[in-house]
């Protein structure tokens, strides 16, 4: 029983990072309707920036948090302006392929600029553990979890309590109607994309003390984030959080009971089941 | 009786978009369907052709119960419809659009081509046969809607506001086309807001309001009926848009 609980908890904690990656995507997918298969590549970029900040200036990822997020926001905004804005109206298949091509470009740009080496950040906390009762928790994962959930909640509050947030929700519901009500559609889209990329950047920073940066590190996260977003019910921020945690737990249990080889297959299977039986997502409104 | 609607109700959640509507339609006739916005006219069409499952009641077509059947099955049995908001297959040519429905009754490409072409001739669109549909203007799109439906070689044609937005000459044109179609023996139910058109076309008219049938009669009876006048002018128009 203790073991099962331990497996569960470890799933929850890795799910925290998935949640954060996915919240960013939920924002982009939900509000702009843009399919971004290069999402994981921004995680990669953020991890590299964290590494360079650590390696050159000596700031650990937590100390360089704000600078990094600002950089990610700028990169996100530029991507939106240069590429995404041109395909807002395009067919989703064009968007998918365009972002796949973008991910090829970013991955290989990283390979060209920074080589394939694994860039580890080792801070004292990396292998620290926290004990609660019989439970063992990896400290950086706990920190990542807390910040991830905190950021997601902040985003949720932003969407619920501020005017800009309300405007974004209105756009998510019905872009044209929102435009008629005087909401600047393109600006709102740009903001949503920028926030989405900043959030995935944050996820990268939180991951960087645990996991090295390398050109392909983001490739798994793009598909995973989509799965979480769909399971969570597309536009729903709480849904994305719950979805992320669920995928973490499913992965963990599959790894424990069936073996790590089945971890990915398990969440893909869960995803297909959700699509078949609850196409609006487990946590979405019907 | 070609079509028999018996106490049909369609609910969305708690709201009844169509409630307890019954009527019958003889072969070869033109039936008008009017009512204010949100009265449930389009929803009724959606129920007849199987796009939406009905909540209660039965629909019988040609002696066969069709409620519960899928829309493509109903189309094959001989009910075709046009959409109020035109739905052309934008990247196909006008002729190709018309041919999709033709394959309903034939497997031969050549046969489908001639059926499609005939349908285009009927609506006077054959000169645009090779134009890609997204480049058509509104009037042409409305005609294409009818041609697509016609090419399935229906017994019953449901026309949903095919004249909305057209110029008066185009409307006259369309009235003529509908008459011609009817003359070939195809029964028609038509939803229309342009009163002169529907009054001159229809033999009988059914008036819906808030999903209920409030009256049925000849054009003359309908235009003089107090309830109809109230429905159109007296009461606030419902805000709910059902279909």
């Amino acid at each position, binding site marked *: 029983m203790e073991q099962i609980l331990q497996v569960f908890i470890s799933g929850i904690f890795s799910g925290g990072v998935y949640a954060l990656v996915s919240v960013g995507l939920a924002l982009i997918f939900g509000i702009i309707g843009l399919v971004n298969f290069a999402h994981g590549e921004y995680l990669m970029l953020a991890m590299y920036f964290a590494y360079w900040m650590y390696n050159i200036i000596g700031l650990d990822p937590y100390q360089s948090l704000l600078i990094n997020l600002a950089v990610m926001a700028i990169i996100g905004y530029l991507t939106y302006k240069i590429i995404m804005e041109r395909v807002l109206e395009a067919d989703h298949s064009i968007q998918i392929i365009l972002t796949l091509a973008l991910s090829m470009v970013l991955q290989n740009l990283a390979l060209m600029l920074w080589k394939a080496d694994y860039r580890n950040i080792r801070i004292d906390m990396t292998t620290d553990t926290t004990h609660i009762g019989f439970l063992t928790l990896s400290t950086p994962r706990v920190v990542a979890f807390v910040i991830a959930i905190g950021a997601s909640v902040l985003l949720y509050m932003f969407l619920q309590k501020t005017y800009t947030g309300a405007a974004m929700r209105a756009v998510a519901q019905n872009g044209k109607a929102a435009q008629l009500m005087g909401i600047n559609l393109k600006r709102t889209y740009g903001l949503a994309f920028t926030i989405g990329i900043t959030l995935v950047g944050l996820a990268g920073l939180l991951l960087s003390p645990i996991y090295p940066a390398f050109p392909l590190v983001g490739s798994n996260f793009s598909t995973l984030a989509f799965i979480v977003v769909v399971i969570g019910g597309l536009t729903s921020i709480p849904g994305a959080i719950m979805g992320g945690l669920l995928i973490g737990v499913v992965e963990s249990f599959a*790894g424990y009971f069936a073996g790590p080889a089945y971890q990915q297959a398990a969440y893909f299977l869960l995803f297909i089941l959700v699509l078949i039986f609850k196409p609006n997502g487990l946590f979405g409104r019907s | 009786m070609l079509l028999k609607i018996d106490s049909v109700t369609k609910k969305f959640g708690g709201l009844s978009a169509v409630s307890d509507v019954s009527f019958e339609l003889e072969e070869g006739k033109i039936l008008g369907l009017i009512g204010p916005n949100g009265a449930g006219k389009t929803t009724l069409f959606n129920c007849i052709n199987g796009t939406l499952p009905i909540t209660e009641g039965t629909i019988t077509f040609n002696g066969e119960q069709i409620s519960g059947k899928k829309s493509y099955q109903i189309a094959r049995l001989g009910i075709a419809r046009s959409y109020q908001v035109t739905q052309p297959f934008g990247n196909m040519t006008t002729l190709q659009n018309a041919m999709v429905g033709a394959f309903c009754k034939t497997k031969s490409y050549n046969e489908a081509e001639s059926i499609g072409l005939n349908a285009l001739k009927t609506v006077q669109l054959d000169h645009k046969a090779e134009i890609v549909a997204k480049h058509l203007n509104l009037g042409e799109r409305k005609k294409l809607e009818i041609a697509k439906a016609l090419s399935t070689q229906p017994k019953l044609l449901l026309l949903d506001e095919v004249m909305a937005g057209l110029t008066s000459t185009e409307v006259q044109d369309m009235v003529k086309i509908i008459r011609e179609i009817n003359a070939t023996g195809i029964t028609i139910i038509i939803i229309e807001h342009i009163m002169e058109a529907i009054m001159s076309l229809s033999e009988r008219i059914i008036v819906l309001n808030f999903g209920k049938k409030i009256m049925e009669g000849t054009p003359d009876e309908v235009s003089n009926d107090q309830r109809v006048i109230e429905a159109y002018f007296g009461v606030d128009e419902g805000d709910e848009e059902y279909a």
Partner: protein
Amino acid sequence: MKKFLPVLLVLVLLATTITGCGGGGNGGEGGTDSEPFKVGAIYPLSGANALLGNQCLTAVKIAVDMVNEAGGVHGRQVQLIEADAPDPTAATTEAGRLVDQQGVEIIFGSLASGNAIAIAGVTERTGVSLVESGGVADALTDSGFKNVFRILDKGSLRGATGANYVGTAIADMLGIAPSDLRVAIIHEESSYGTSVADGAEAKAIELGMNVVAREHYATTITDMSALVLKINEAKPDVLLSVNYINDAILLVDTLKQYNAVPKVFMGLGAGTTDPNFAATIGADSDGFFCTDMPTNLPLDVFKDEEMRATVSAFREAFLEQYPDLLNVSIAAEAAFAGAYTFMTEILPNAETLDPESIREAALTTKLDMTTLGFGWDLGDDGQNYAASANINQWQGGEVVTIYPEKLKNGDVINVPLPIASE
């Protein structure tokens, strides 16, 4: 049409680049009167294995430079043509380019066994030699290829060597009879991990040990908690583990976090031998075993003075290009050894540089020592039966060779590991 112009422009630019490069490649100047002797190198330079692939290519380049400086092969300068093969399909095409377009006589490769087999499919036809110093899958030399020469040990042998040491020496040190010894096997799921783990499992069963768990995972794994909890459940005394570097570090971190470090950790090649392994994990790595080709041997192992100088020069040249690395990676050392030995020891023994003579020279030449620390003695299948795996142990951030006796330069420490659970 206006918008189409940029696309056209890109295409035109590309075309010029390609023809430009092609022209340059063909007109390589050797500096001698005779035509250069062309050799190829195919490694994964992009994609998931890009890291080691690029290191291997660097090593081969250094070997070629050294050979050229010393006068080349049969008096001809060696011209190296490189190729990127992230997967077997690309390997086939690129092997075709090197063999049929560039006319290379030898291909050095290829890190991934799948690529090696795909390349062999091309080279066999024309008799071009494939000198393999990275791929360990048994199938490569078990499939009847005539011109594939593998300098390093087979995967199954490497696994078996590690398991054998566990079943004999380590069982003794722990004071547990092999039949009571509980071993768990973890491996990454590519052909590398699978073939080494297969060898280890077979040997462990042969020696009567209890294989209490065997799990595999994809190298893209980001959280090993479930794996570690599952393995820990089986309460192994010894963990036999085949990993690349990234996952090796993640595995040890996670083992430590869950206080699940077994009494003995026996790494089987690649990641656990990588200098970054100890550098990243720190002092806790003291006592972790790693079975691999001989790696980072002290220079005094090389009795031959010339060879000692060669190894030293290679290491220096390599680290110059990879200043971040502490030591030369084992993959690069093997790539160098394969290329250098073949060009300096085998080719001079071939009467001419045609496939038949090269093959004969490769199979008949016997060497006691190569720069990799073991000899050269190929069987008819092209496998180097002098190749062995060493049992090494991390001590103070350095790889210390424990076994075989002749290469031994330190004694075993930390059995059981001080950080082991219980």
